[in-house]
């Protein structure tokens, strides 16, 4: 029972972090049909911005958070403006290749400034163990879980209630019709990239608080791809459900079956599910009226 609770809590935390990161990939895909392979590197940007501001410069952590968010927004908007916008109308595969190139570029720039060695992160979230019945979980994992859930809820409200959120979904549905409402497609793209970078940066900070800051932080970005494909590339609820499923599968298979299996099982599950539901669990199908 203790093990089960332990694995479940860990799995849920990982899953919600995956969901948060996946949200960025889904947003960019929904609005512009681009799959952003540099999403993991946005985690690095967040983790290192926080590391620099708090660990190296010595600013108080709330200031560090503000700086990190600002850096993330800037990075997202710049990437959209300088890299993606000139590529509008190019074949989708070239755009994808560009995001892969971008991921190496971001990685290289960061190692230029900070080196490649793993460094201790200024743990601004306490790591004290918290007892959960028979299970014990470090407090920073619980914080990560709570924050991820809160942020996801906030974004869902944003897409349902605000003009800007509705405009983003409208663009995802029919770009030319959205244009005819006076919605600026470019603005929507920029917002999508900014949000993607922000959620990734926050996830990056939370992950770095748990495992320390190094290039490895971006590896979690790769593990998010089974999540988005499982949930459906264009579905926000899908990202959340997919994140939780993959997170739990990982910890259960690693904990109950054999350590190491957690790397494989998510992909096996992914293939099985795609055989039944080729667009993922929540992937949008075209609406056909009869």
């Amino acid at each position, binding site marked *: 029972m203790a093990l089960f609770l332990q694995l479940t809590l860990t799995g849920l935390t990982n899953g919600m972090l995956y969901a948060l990161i996946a949200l960025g990939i889904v947003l960019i895909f929904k609005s512009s049909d681009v799959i952003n392979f540099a999403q993991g590197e946005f985690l690095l940007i967040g983790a290192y911005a926080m590391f620099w501001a708090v660990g190296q410069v010595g600013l108080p952590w709330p200031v560090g958070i503000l700086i990190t968010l600002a850096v993330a927004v800037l990075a997202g908007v710049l990437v959209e403006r300088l890299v993606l916008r000139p590529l509008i109308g190019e074949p989708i595969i070239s755009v994808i290749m560009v995001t892969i190139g971008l991921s190496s570029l971001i990685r290289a720039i960061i190692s230029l400034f900070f080196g490649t060695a793993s460094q201790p992160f200024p743990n601004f979230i306490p790591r004290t163990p918290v007892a959960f019945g028979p299970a014990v979980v470090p407090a920073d994992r619980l914080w990560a879980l709570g924050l991820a859930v809160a942020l996801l809820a906030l974004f869902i409200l944003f897409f*349902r209630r605000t*003009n800007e959120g*509705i*405009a983003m*979904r*409208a663009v*995802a*549905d*029919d*770009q*030319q*019709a*959205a*244009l*005819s*409402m*006076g*919605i*600026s497609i470019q603005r929507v793209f920029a917002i999508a990239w900014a949000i993607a970078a922000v959620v990734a940066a926050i996830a990056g900070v939370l992950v770095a608080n748990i495992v320390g800051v190094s290039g490895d932080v971006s590896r979690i970005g790769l593990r998010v791809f089974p999540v988005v494909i499982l949930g459906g590339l264009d579905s926000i609820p899908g990202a959340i459900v997919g994140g939780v499923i993959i997170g739990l599968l990982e910890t259960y298979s690693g904990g109950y079956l054999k350590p190491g299996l957690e790397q494989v099982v998510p992909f096996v599950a992914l293939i099985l599910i795609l055989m039944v539901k080729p667009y993922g669990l929540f992937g*949008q199908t075209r*609406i056909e*009226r009869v």
Partner: protein
Amino acid sequence: MLALNNIEVIYNDVILVLKGMSMQVGEGQIVALLGSNGAGKSTTLKAVSGLLKPEDGAVTDGEILFLGQRIDRLDAADIVRRGVFQVMEGRRVFEHLTVEENLRAGAYTQRDARRQTQDLELVYGYFPRLLERRQQTAGYLSGGEQQMLAIGRAMMAHPRLMMLDEPSLGLAPLLVEEIFRIIRRINQEQKTTILLVEQNARLALAVADYAYIMENGRIVLEGAPAQLQENADVREFYLGLTDVGTRKSYRDVKHYKRRKRWLS
């Protein structure tokens, strides 16, 4: 209010579609733009609303004036903000959004939240069926309801000029009449000027104050509806009325060819 002076539109840098197209729409009027399939009606509307760009089309000659100012170089968002709104052919509702979210998307350029709520009530007043279905996903509405939603969505933007591209397309006759009645009411009660593109000439001429007939990228005929209804070609090709026994066989053949072109 709106004037197109001799405009030329080219797609993909090579396909010349509008060849010296000119027309005017006076404030408060309903003006019909008629023509067979492929004549360039939709292209004309997109030239006005700035929607050619995503299709790789461009106005390469002539000018478009709205309220005396040139708008042919502005982007779509600026043109909407100036009060020109196009209801695109085929309704183009946002399928995965609810009815109310579609309406709110239409109000994108109107940032006053209180006014948005009033406008929603106004639209629901014109289209009670949309009120019943306000939380429903738009993709599952019937064709007629989607057309109502497309018009309601346009009203949310407070346009001074609303351009409707074939609102009757694919709808049952009774529904078409209902929609035309509402268009008339919007014109009279909201003082919205209307540019109506149609293939259904009979209905369009019945509501319009003035009409243009377009063929092959330019205007070939214009006038008040009563006047056009007297025109032999219009009667034959648009209204399906034939003046019996007035033609020799050679002309019949020629007409057959022309008719084929109108209908193709």
